[in-house]
């Protein structure tokens, strides 16, 4: 009589143990596994979800449970996010695992971004762009598509974006003890010297680490960086600025963005945008890290040096023969990274095929299915023609 019961108990324990092992073994590598469209489920009080969508311009957090692959993060904070991509129909979301408990984390992550893809009819630009930057050796957030369900209802196709935080810094730079700033676009800012007052810097550079330090400790080095960029004599520009800003990684990022026709990046159409600044705790120079690449692929013939003349940093870089030569060298590296083995074409095709069913089923995307397919065709055209155009631009300008 007891044997079937005992057997069931043993089997149950074994299965539970196996399940627990597989759940515990999951890491961010599994979450950002690009091999498949992930599935995320959000459970939120229906009243809160209605309020979040009605007040989508607000940054108010609401409590929710988030489930991925059998792992449930309880009582996380979610809020509407984005600038031009804010939507009450298909809200972009920040998922903050530590908002309601300082101990909160998920696979070691404190937060995630769920990009609603409302500014990109192809729904794959940003993921392709970030993958391209990483291929070029630039520390860039990992991204993976996900079907999002809210209270059991399909809420559309999103992209899970790895946040730029201390975990990111440790992963890519091997150091997270320094000062991380998120740049906020407020007005057209082209790396000019903002002024002597340290109060001028926090609105642009929001500290993401060491937030409790004094204004001087946080912002004096930022002020001095931009002072040096603007006032260093021509003959000492490379050494003076190079002591405060890592030229190699900066030029690599600008070259990558230029190849990808980034319209809203370091040399954006309305000044600098979409980046983080990281100042290591050591005497090593600061680095610029990319963010939010949904305005890449602007046009196959988007000028290589668009925005360069207006931006003080880039203008002065191009005035230095050594830095100028290195920049064009890196642009050609980008061309090679994109065209070698048809990488860019293959990446776009792979991502498109992977997300197509989910994209077509997404009832909240602000595009038709025909526009989605047409956007894919455009990206392929870009990938096939951009390398030649950029190469010709390098020949003309170097």
């Amino acid at each position: 009589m007891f044997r079937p019961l005992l057997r069931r108990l043993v089997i149950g324990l074994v299965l539970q143990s196996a399940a627990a092992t597989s759940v515990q073994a999951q890491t961010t590598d599994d979450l950002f596994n690009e091999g498949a469209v992930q599935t995320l489920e959000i459970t939120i009080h229906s009243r809160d979800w209605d309020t979040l969508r009605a007040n989508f311009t607000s940054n108010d957090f609401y409590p929710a449970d988030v489930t991925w692959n059998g792992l449930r993060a309880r009582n996380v904070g979610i809020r509407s996010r984005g600038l031009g991509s804010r939507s009450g129909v298909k809200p972009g979301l920040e998922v903050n695992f530590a908002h309601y408990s300082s101990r909160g984390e998920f696979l070691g992550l404190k937060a995630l971004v769920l990009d609603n893809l409302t500014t990109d009819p192809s729904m794959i630009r940003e993921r392709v762009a970030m993958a391209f930057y990483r291929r070029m050796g630039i520390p860039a957030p990992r991204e993976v598509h996900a079907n999002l369900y809210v209270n059991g209802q399909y809420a559309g196709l999103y992209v899970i974006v790895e946040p730029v935080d201390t975990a990111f810094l440790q992963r890519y730079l091997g150091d997270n003890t320094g000062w991380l700033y998120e740049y906020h676009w407020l007005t057209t800012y082209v790396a000019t010297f903002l002024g002597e007052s340290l109060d001028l810097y926090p609105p642009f550079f929001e500290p993401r680490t060491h937030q409790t330090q004094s204004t001087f400790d946080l912002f004096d080095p930022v002020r001095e960086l931009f002072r040096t960029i603007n006032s260093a004599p021509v003959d000492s520009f490379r050494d003076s600025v190079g002591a405060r800003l890592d030229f190699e990684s900066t030029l690599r990022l600008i070259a990558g963005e230029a190849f990808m026709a980034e319209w809203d990046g370091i040399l954006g159409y309305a000044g600098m945008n979409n980046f983080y600044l990281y100042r290591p705790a050591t005497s090593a120079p600061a680095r610029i890290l990319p963010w939010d690449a949904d305005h890449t692929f602007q046009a196959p013939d988007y000028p290589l040096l668009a925005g360069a003349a207006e931006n003080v940093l880039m203008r002065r870089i191009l005035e230095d023969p050594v830095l100028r030569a290195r920049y064009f060298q890196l642009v050609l590296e980008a061309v090679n990274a994109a065209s070698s083995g048809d990488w860019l074409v293959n990446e776009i095709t792979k991502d498109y095929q992977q997300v197509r069913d989910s994209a077509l089923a997404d009832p909240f995307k602000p595009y038709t299915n025909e526009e989605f397919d047409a956007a894919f065709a455009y990206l392929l055209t870009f990938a096939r023609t951009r390398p030649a155009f950029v190469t010709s631009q390098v020949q003309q300008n170097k």
Partner: protein
Amino acid sequence: MIRPTPSDIGRWRCAPHVALRALCAAAAVVLALSVPASAQQAGKQGKQKVESGVQWDDGSIRFGESVRIEPKVRVQADMLLWNDEGPIEDRFSWGSRRIGVNGELFNRVQFQVERAFQNDDDDDTPWRDVYVDVRINRAFQVRGGRFKLPFSLERNTSRDDLDFIQRATAVRAISPARDTGVMVHGRVAKRMVEYEAGVFQHADGFDLTDDPNSWSALGAALTGRVIVSPIRDKADGPTRDLHFGVALVRNTMPEGLNSVVGRLFDNDRFSERMNVNGQRTRLGAEGLWRGRRATIKGELLQLTDQRLQQAITGGDLSDLVQRGGYLTGIVRVFGKPGRRGQAVDVAARLDRFTLGSANDTDEPFTNPRADHVAPLAKNTLTFGGNWQVHRWVRVQGNLLRETLVDSLGVRDINTEPRWTAVMRFQFSL
């Protein structure tokens, strides 16, 4: 730290010159009025019969023995001396500015009308006490209008007579504000037992009259308070007054972020509003002992909120529980016992307020739909000195030490003690 609500902002930001000017004006009024008041004190013993006209003895206007009308004026100006928050931009603020009138008609009907010129009591209208109280006999009186609910000794103590500049945190958070209602009250058992029982229109500021379901479940806010005083106004002996009391308030809260919140001295909130829905129950116990020169009093308060259908999944959450209390000791170091005349008191109060939930075993969170609400407490130690300069003028000084306690360490808050020193100048007619 949670930011102050718009109504909080500016408590210490009033233009200094305006406050100073008013302070000087109030001082001038005091000086002017103190002369006839003193003169009347000298002739007090000879007065036998109440006559019509202004009676300077108690500041009232009388028409024979049947009508007494007493104007009320209160001006409280506060000066922040020091706090831990850094440089103080504006030291002056108004504690309270009110005018009003109270009185008695035909020895049967008492009334009061009072209006405030600033939101000094978390009220949603400028009107404070506006009521009529009819005395059938000592055991049965009926009060109707807008007035304080019978809950909490300190809440029902006028701001004029508080031992400290601010009420205890738990009293501010847990005890209800004024409301419109009807209350019966009286003294029985040779005045040893005092009772108050009432029904009030609203539920913590939420008018539920348009919601028949709420009314059927609610029947407005129901309150009751019983005080037993084995010793009252005893002229000699070590104990002059002794009383104990219990109180209850029940009402229904509408769904939403409607929990009560704890506040620091500067009115900044230190706890978040939580989702509630259902019955709100307040329980209170109070005690007071008064000797010849010393007084000890204290209260224990508890507020529980039901949270029906407030879980993330739509289910019920465990009750939200907020508790608190205080213990106050006062010693008269100068002056005669009683409330009139010149006197100096020193006082100390230890008060505590805690936020939590009935479920305290699960993983704790701070969110407004957490089943186990991460516990948070505020301990406050207040030292005070009260100088009754004149029957209408009082100067108070308080030194506070406020400490937030995050016992499970899940909140991102500053748990260092915060010190504040503040003075109050009060003119109260």
